[in-house]
């Protein structure tokens, strides 16, 4: 187990370094950084001074090392647009996105796991077919469209929910519903297929033959095993939701990290874009390590695989 953990962490570290190089190159490719930092009305001396202070006259490799060293110390740079510290901006918006990701994931799981189990108990039943049809539709619907339709229904027609902003818990209801609908197909299929597999296995037949109550067999024996893949995919999906909620955050003007990144892209505020790419990627890598270790703990055979 120890060697496995070290190998996984080593791989994760290598990926993080590679991602940081990409994030670094992304900003380097946008043009002369000294001019971008100084603004249009900076004098030639000011630009030259910025170039010296930030080491922009050094070789790219030296610049990368300097930048990476600053990042490790928590200095992600300054926003071109607002001159604010980028780390502060990210720390302000990350909680909003995290709340959204957690609530939508919880909502999605609370609906899709019971639905998946009910489908698996009687595959081919009317309920099963309706759920599957919904998941096929769900996979084909753009999430921002779902968001806009919800705004039309709850915000414009019924006027029961706020259509934008982060003021109250109610502001999170529609965004969370949108993203829950987005993850529903994945988890429905995963829990349904897992349950169908498990229910046809020998130990379930044994449990039934022993005369255990139906509920005990379903929940204690079957669901506990069928849910393993759901847990690991949910961990990874959480990472996706942290980075992938740009569209939904922009539809609902939710001040999360997605909206921060999107407005930064529109303003060509690249230090912010770079930092968001880096932070989201690192969180994703860490979540993957957690998922891998979780899986290995549950199924030690995985440790011997390449």
């Amino acid at each position, binding site marked *: 187990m120890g060697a496995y953990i070290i190998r996984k962490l080593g791989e994760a570290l290598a990926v993080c370094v*590679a991602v940081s190089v990409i994030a670094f190159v992304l900003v380097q490719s946008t043009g002369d950084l000294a001019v971008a930092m100084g603004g249009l009305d900076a004098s030639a001396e000011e630009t030259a001074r910025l170039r010296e202070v930030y080491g922009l006259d050094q070789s790219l490799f030296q610049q990368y090392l300097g930048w990476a060293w600053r990042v490790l110390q928590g200095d992600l740079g300054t926003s071109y647009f607002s001159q604010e510290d980028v780390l502060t901006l990210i720390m302000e918006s990350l909680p909003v996105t995290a709340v959204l990701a957690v609530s939508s994931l919880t909502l999605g799981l609370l609906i899709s796991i019971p639905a998946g189990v009910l489908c698996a108990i009687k595959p081919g039943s009317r309920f099963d077919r309706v759920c599957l049809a919904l998941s096929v539709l769900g996979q*084909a619907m*753009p999430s921002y469209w779902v968001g806009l339709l919800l705004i039309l229904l709850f915000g414009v027609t019924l006027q029961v929910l706020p259509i934008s902003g982060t003021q109250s818990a109610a502001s999170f209801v529609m965004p969370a519903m949108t993203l829950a609908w987005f993850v529903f197909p994945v988890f429905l299929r*995963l829990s349904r297929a897992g349950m169908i597999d498990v229910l046809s296995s020998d130990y379930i037949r044994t449990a039934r033959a022993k005369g255990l109550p139906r509920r005990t067999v379903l929940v204690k024996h079957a669901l506990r095993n069928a849910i393993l893949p759901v847990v690991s995919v949910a961990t990874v999906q959480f990472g996706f939701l942290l980075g*992938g909620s*740009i569209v939904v955050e922009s539809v609902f003007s939710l001040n999360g990290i997605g909206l921060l990144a999107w407005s930064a892209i529109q303003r060509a505020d690249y230090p912010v874009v770079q930092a968001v790419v880096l932070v989201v990627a690192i969180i994703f890598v860490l979540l993957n390590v957690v998922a891998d270790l979780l899986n290995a703990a549950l199924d030690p055979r995985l440790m011997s695989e390449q």
Partner: protein
Amino acid sequence: MSVRTTNLPLDQRGPRFLRLPFAGKFGFRLGIVMLTGFVLVAVFAPYIAPHDPYSQSLLARLKPPVWAGGTWEHPLGTDGFGRDYLSRLIYGTRISLIVGLGAAALAMLIGTTLGVIAGVFGGAANRIVSFIISIRLALPSLLLALAILQIAGSGVMVVVVVLAVTHWDRFAVVLRTACRQVAGQDYVTRARAMGASEARIVRTEILPNVLSHIVIIFTFEMAQCILAAAALSFLGLGIQAPEPSWGLMMSEGRAFLVINPWLITIAGFAIMLLVLAVNLVGDGLRDLVVPKERS
């Protein structure tokens, strides 16, 4: 040449959750009919569209569709510039199909190459490819795509390339596994013993046997690329105005959400139908190849 179907899991990361269910023959047929319809509309757009999709008319702004009090002059109404919505929708089919096909094809080229290299050669090649796949998966693709489009400028070609660069991973992951299995077969060993070069083995022994996987992932990724392209347009950094891209049409319709909700409803519905059609076809193909896996 020996063509065999391989009963492999389609995706290591979760073989089941991507599989479209109800994939009986009905779904397959429905998908083919729908997709054929979309292709015909795209090809014959100039003959079908009742108006010029670009011509504006300030007098005819924001007309409702015919079922909501509009006239047959503009069956689906008009947008904020008075352009005929049906005509824009018809021409938009072209953009969606071209971008979806182009991006999926390029992604296929990248992913298949990497997957075949990793699967056939194994060892160090496999480790390098695995590393590249990990990096690709760690990067937030939509965010990166938006940033690249902002830096490099938006155009159909840039959108296609950006989408391909962010959608090749599934090809690589699945083909690596598939190629590894095929490469261990006796007929590959035999071909090698007979002195066939690696390139020849890949071309005549391996690729034909993993072709079905490529086709299936292609349809799935094409659907994903159509959705992603629409999202990029919706966020304002994909296909640019005045092109009738469906995502852009929704983005433009957002300003008139309350006055004319049909603008976003119809364009979103079109995206959903096209993605549904592609997914149904992909699922039907998968059933043909791997009948046992049908749920």
